[in-house]
């Protein structure tokens, strides 16, 4: 459970860095997948599977995250507005 919290903390910290730098990432890496660790981008990959598998090979402690370089949010259609989906 402690590992899970740490993974979640890594995801949250990387997300803040990612959001701040998204405009710059979009210019050259739109729709790629950013492999991130310690609030830095390790690399950009064409598929989420590539980013995930390389992350697993490089970081045995599993402390990394993968963010898609996009500014288009997911639309859940009717369901988005039927149930509150939680906070950011």
């Amino acid at each position: 459970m402690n590992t899970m919290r740490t993974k979640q903390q890594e995801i949250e910290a990387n997300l803040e860095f990612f959001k701040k730098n998204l405009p710059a990432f979009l210019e050259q890496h739109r729709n790629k997948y950013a492999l991130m660790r310690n609030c830095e981008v390790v690399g950009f990959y064409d598929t989420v599977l590539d980013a995930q598998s390389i992350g697993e090979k490089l970081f045995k402690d599993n402390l990394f995250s993968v963010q898609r370089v996009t500014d288009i949010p997911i639309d859940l259609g009717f369901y988005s507005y039927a149930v509150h989906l939680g906070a950011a």
Partner: protein
Amino acid sequence: MPCIWGQHNGSQLFCAVAILPVSALAATGQLTPYVPMAVTALIDTGATTTCITSGLASRVPLTPIGKVPVHGVSGIAHHNNYLFYVAFPFTLPPGTVDPNFPPPSPGQVLGQIFVLHKAIQGCELVTAPNAGFEVLLGMDVISSGSLVVQGGNGTFSFSF
């Protein structure tokens, strides 16, 4: 081409699915020893992406890989997302014999599972307590196949 079939209630489509971690599918495409659990999914053509509840993610188990922006009632929020495969389980008719497996014990039936060979990057959603489903099957899955809804006899089919 695998095809699932079911009945709808005139307003919503539900079907049984199994969520598999990507590690459950070996490089050969064969299912590694893993016992998938069947859960109920709402088929939603209005959703761009498949979503699962956090409770289901814990039971599979899945670890979040990152976060994605999602439209919600209060604007855009970032939700955990997961990497998984969607599969469709069937129970075979009673009395079915498969030479590869021992005969089922009394009260048990043989089952079969069809895995959609496309890694899904699905996000987490919160459902109402009485929602009756744990997976929102979005267009990332639906567009991989052919969905037919029949009004006359109240059935639907999805082939992929």
